[in-house]
């Protein structure tokens, strides 16, 4: 059996890639993808610990996270569509009017 540390390292790597993407990209679609990466890093953790402790709670939780991710993408794509309609662009640095 693969020890749980390997899964954790994988999960941390995926999370960090997602975080890096979130902080550096300007394209809104890439934002969404980065968020997906971070959520799936969490899923890896859940499943890994589920295997480690031998119960199904973590797996069930990861199913919940997938459902949540699907809903989040639906809302996110909707926001991006509105963004595109208003600014003719999906660059998140362009809309700056919602500030103090």
């Amino acid at each position: 059996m693969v020890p749980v540390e390997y899964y954790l390292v994988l999960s941390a790597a995926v999370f960090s890639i997602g975080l890096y993407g979130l902080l550096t990209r300007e394209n809104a679609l890439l934002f969404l993808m980065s968020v997906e990466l971070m959520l799936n890093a969490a899923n890896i953790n859940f499943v890994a610990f589920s295997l480690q402790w031998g119960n199904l709670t973590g797996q069930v939780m990861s199913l919940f996270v997938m459902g949540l991710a699907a809903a989040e993408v639906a809302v996110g794509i909707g926001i991006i569509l509105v963004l595109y309609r208003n600014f003719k662009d999906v660059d998140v640095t362009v809309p700056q009017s919602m500030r103090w």
Partner: protein
Amino acid sequence: MLGFVVADNLLMAFMFFELVGLCSYLLIGFWFRQAGPPSAAKKAFLVTRFGDYFFLIGVVAVFATFGTAKFAGDHSFPHLAEQAIQGEATVNTFLGLEPAAWFTVVGLLVLGGVIGKSAQFPLHTWLPDAMEGPTPVSALIHAATMVAAGVYLVARMYGFYAVSPTAMAVIALVGAFTALFAATMGLVKKEIKQVLAYSTISQYGYIMLGLGAGGYVAGTFHLLTHAFFKALLFLGAGSVIIAMHHNEDMWDMGGLKDRMPVTYYTFLAGSLALAGIVPFAGFWSKDEVLYEALVHGLGTTSGLGTALLVAYGMGLIAVLFTGFYTFRMVMLTFHGEPRTETAREATEPGWNVKLPLVVLGILATTVGFVNMVPVKDLTGMHIDFLHQWLYGPSEGGWPAALGTGGEHYHHLLFADYGAGMAAAELPSYLVGLLSLALALFGAGAAYALYGGADPDPHTDKLGSIKDVLYNNYYQDEYQVWLAEGVVLPLSKAADVFDQAVVDGVVNGVSSVSLFGGSRIKRIQDGLVTHYAAMLTIGLTVLLVGFAIYGGWF
């Protein structure tokens, strides 16, 4: 007032007490377009409010001490107080006082409201000014309501006062001093309603004296009889004032006896009752008050006994003055020759005025018969009906069930843990004869001085004493000075403190927040990536913080 009478706890009593005050304010200010009445109404409201302030603190203290404010029953605060003093119940006391001392403090706080409402010294100044109101209003608020509310409250929570000798002494002394003090001022007044106003203050002093001297029945009895004869006197004065075309100066009257016989005879009945001449109502009740003060004063050995004896002395002198000012009023108004054209042509008002006078006149003559203690002592007949009713039957009955009977109060007053009173053996008719003689002497003096056809203003011979009395011992001036010379500078200083320090702190806090907000709001620059970066930084800082303080390393 009805709500106040049926209220079963102190808080409701307080609220109805205030409503009575409000109604008096509105009634006194009935003629609000003139200059005097609104100002008198405001004075009545403010002066009684000053006393009610202490009452309010007393109500809060009763709640904080006992957790209840019920007047009667096993879980009432007088009952709990009694048990606490005997060590059978625990209550919260404050200021580090023993239960007995703390109950005295609470009782005196509530007494503040009583002194304001019942026009006792030093808060009596509103009552003479309240004569600005219509005369039926004066009859109402000085006979049956308002001023009655104060002494009624003392009688209502009598079981609470009865465990505190200090509070009893204060009640008796304040009452007796007020009785004497007001009677001296009534000696020199010119207006008929002013004389009646001071007699009201004086008579309420007697009621307080009776209650403070351990005469629960005597005090309530005097409250009962006073209501009849004082309402009668005010309505009689109203009749005279109508006939005199709203001139209240007694020196402009005279000889009204023949012009208005019904008013004269009913007024005379009321005056005889007020002066305490046998067998009119006031005699029986006033003499019982004085009798209780004397026997308890003589019997009690502690300081309370001395206080009661002093109070009895003041009450006895006030009897003399009462007889004098009452019959000075009667003589000046109804006897002698008419001194003005209006008095010569005065006509008695119709039966709508006279009928209440007749009814009250009969009652003022006879209501004393419900409680003739001296006659009972002389003949052995059981005709002290008020006593019997307030003491209740020997078995069962409401007074025993509620713990508010005269028997229970008597027990409390004489108990070691209570007021610690004792009664001397004295025949009540002898004491009654003494005060009757004094009242007759006062009345006779008034008759001798003012009974002639054209009396002189004899009180002018008193010189500067008359000026002092006529100006009410400069009580009003002194209270105005107190308000303007002491309270106003104090409140100005408080205002400066409020503006500078309290408001300064508040304004400082708000300007710091405003300045901080105007700087910190620039973080929100509308750029989504910056928000994401800040979230990440925040999470990192949190994690590092937890790591350091949680000892992960």
